[in-house]
Each structure stands twice: as structure tokens, then as C-alpha cells.
């Protein structure tokens, strides 16, 4: 009788303990939006947490979704009542637009063993080009083609300096149709032989950290065989809507 009773007490005590032995990591936010400046090479998100439970929480792993993001935790072990943060550092590289990177955190908390932290960064680069490649077919008329450059409006870029890696192409910059827009006019000397040039574009912005951007210009090698010429004529003639083009020369 005694042993049964004490066993019962023991079980109840154990149960009571299990109930109150809660670990709980509370996150201030699990999703952070960032707007890095055009000169920033990294975007850093801080994910703050607090252990509002009464047992320590242990981080088993902190793992980012891609190689461009690293994540670090201040402490491996979080005592009850302790606060800390996980820092996610996103290396922007050449990325643009809206980038979403996640960090998956594994803990020993049985309730929530896996948490996903999200870093959302909206990147507006210093300069964007459309298109980044202009090219001419062999024998095509060497008329200028336009690359439109859009500058980040916070950068206050007044001028762009464009140079070609070979003298086979010339480049000229004019203001574009909208503020912070430029028209880069590229022209080959001739289109008789295949040439490739990198166009280096330097903005004059004082905040500029020596950023250089590039686009490409090419004259393609002469097209192989009559088979492709025939299919080109076919395509040239299949003009839409109502009219016909006369057969190309």
C-alpha cells in the first residue's frame, strides 16, 4: 500500500514537472524586410528572441537557404529569461529586385523544433541597363543601338562615362526620356567581321565607391549555310496582321 501510494505520488510529481518544464522561445519577428542602399554590399537582419519558458533552449542548427546568406546565433544555449538574437547576413552580390532568403533554426524545443526566419530585401541597384547586350549580325547595317540606363534616384547621378574595350565600337551618352535615365547609343565601325567589346560604364555620383558596370556589344560571326537564311526569309515574310513584306533581298 505504501509503495503504491508513493509510486502514485512519484508519477504525479513527474507529470507535474513535465507540465511546467516548458521551453519557449519567443520571437520578436520571424520575418524582416530590408531596403539596403545601393552602396551596401550586405543586408543584415536581426531576429530577436527571448526564452519565456523555464528550461533552457538549445540551438541544434542554424542553416541558411543559400550560400549567399550566413546566419549566426549569439548563444548556443538560451537560459530561461535570457534574450538574444540570430543575425542573418545576406551578401547581395549582383542581385537585384526583391530577394527572399530564409534561415532554418532547429532547437530542442519539442513544441517548435524548427523555425523558419525570413529575410526579404528589396534591392535597387545603382544602375540598371536594358538590354545588357547589343549586337549586330554580320552584314547588318551598322546603325546605332540603344541601351537604356536607369539610375537609382537616391544616387543623384548626373553623368555616365562609357568606354569600349576595343575601338571597334563607339558609345555616346545622352539624357533619357525620364529623370535619372540615360540613353547609351552604341555603334560598330562596321559589321564585316566578328568583334566583341565590353562597355564599361562609370557613374559620376560622388557617393560612388568606384562602382563600374558593364554591358556588352558584339558583331556576330557570319551566319552558317543557306538553311538558316531560308528560314529567316520565311520568318521575315510571316508578318502579323494584315500585310505582306516583299521578299527580303
Amino acid at each position, binding site marked *: 500500500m505504501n509503495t503504491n501510494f508513493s509510486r502514485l505520488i512519484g508519477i504525479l510529481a513527474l507529470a507535474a514537472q513535465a507540465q511546467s518544464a516548458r521551453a519557449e522561445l519567443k520571437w520578436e519577428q520571424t520575418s524582416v524586410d530590408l531596403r539596403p542602399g545601393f552602396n551596401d554590399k550586405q543586408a543584415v537582419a536581426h531576429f530577436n528572441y527571448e526564452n519565456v519558458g523555464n528550461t533552457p533552449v538549445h540551438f541544434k542548427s542554424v542553416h541558411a537557404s543559400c550560400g549567399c546568406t550566413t546566419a549566426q546565433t549569439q548563444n548556443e544555449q538560451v537560459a530561461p529569461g535570457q534574450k538574444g538574437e540570430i543575425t542573418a547576413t545576406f551578401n547581395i552580390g549582383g542581385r537585384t529586385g526583391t530577394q527572399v532568403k530564409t534561415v532554418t533554426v532547429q532547437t530542442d524545443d519539442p513544441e517548435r523544433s524548427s523555425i523558419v526566419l525570413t529575410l526579404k530585401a528589396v534591392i535597387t541597384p545603382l544602375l540598371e541597363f536594358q538590354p545588357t547586350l547589343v549586337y549586330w*549580325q554580320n*552584314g*547588318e*547595317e551598322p*546603325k546605332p543601338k540603344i541601351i537604356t540606363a536607369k539610375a537609382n534616384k537616391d544616387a543623384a547621378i548626373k553623368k555616365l562615362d562609357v568606354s569600349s574595350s576595343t575601338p571597334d565600337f563607339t558609345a555616346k551618352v545622352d539624357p533619357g526620356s525620364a529623370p535619372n535615365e540615360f540613353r547609351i547609343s552604341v555603334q560598330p565601325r562596321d559589321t564585316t567581321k566578328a568583334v566583341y567589346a565590353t562597355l564599361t560604364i562609370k557613374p559620376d555620383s560622388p557617393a560612388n565607391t568606384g562602382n563600374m558596370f558593364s554591358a556588352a556589344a558584339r558583331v556576330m560571326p557570319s551566319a552558317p549555310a543557306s538553311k*538558316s537564311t531560308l528560314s*529567316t526569309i*520565311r*520568318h*521575315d*515574310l*510571316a*508578318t*502579323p*496582321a*494584315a*500585310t*505582306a*513584306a*516583299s*521578299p*527580303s*533581298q
Partner: protein
Amino acid sequence: MDLSSRNILWRIVALIVGGIFIYAGVIKAMDPVAFANDIDNYKILPWPLAVRLAFYLPWLEMLCGLALLLRSFYRGGLFILTGLVSIFIVASVVARARGLDITCGCFGHASKNWNFSGHLALDLAIFAALIALWISSPRQQQEL
């Protein structure tokens, strides 16, 4: 130039223009899906309409081209072709104004030598030829 030489001249122009439209119609009829995509690239018509038009228009072009050649339904053919060319010219200009890169009218197709203005000039020339044929054609089929 006397009347018969002028007639021969117009006959030749009609043959050339008619031939162009027949050739173009045949090419488009051979690949209606490609033509449907070309129409769609102008972003003026919804796809279901574009695809049905892609099946219909080439045959209309061919018939009208034939009308010019055979001098049968001649003015009717001229009337339609003139209408089609005008619509196309307007559509090209509108597409260009909207910033759609339609070179040679063939968005995405290899357009080696035709740029927008060259193509437009050509279409205007065809348009002018059609108008000229219209003006010079008799109201009724008279002689031969």
C-alpha cells in the same frame, strides 16, 4: 504614255502586288501557330481572337491576291487589301509607340536586315501601289 501602255503598266503592278499577297498568305497559312504568336506580340487583340484571325487572314490575303492577278472581283480585292495594310501600318506604329520591340514586324524572330522604318516604308509603298491601282481601275469591267 498612251492608254494601252498605261494599262500594261498597271497590269504589271497588279501582278506584283497580287503575287506578294499570295506568297505572304501561303507562308502564313503553312504555320498558323507562328502567325498567331506574331499577332499576339502586338498585344492589341486577346489570344483567342488572335489565333482565329491567324487561320482566317492568310486565306483572305491569298484570295485577294488572286483577285488582283485574275482581275476578277478586282476592286473588291483592292478594297480589302488596302484596308488590311492600313490596319497593319497603324498597329505597327502603335506597337512601336508602346515600346514593343517589333523589328520587321516579327517580334523575336531573327530580323537581319529589316528595321522598323525600313519595314514601314515598304508597307507604305504597298499601300500607295494599292491606292494607285484603285484609282486607275475601271468602275466596271470594260475591255480586256
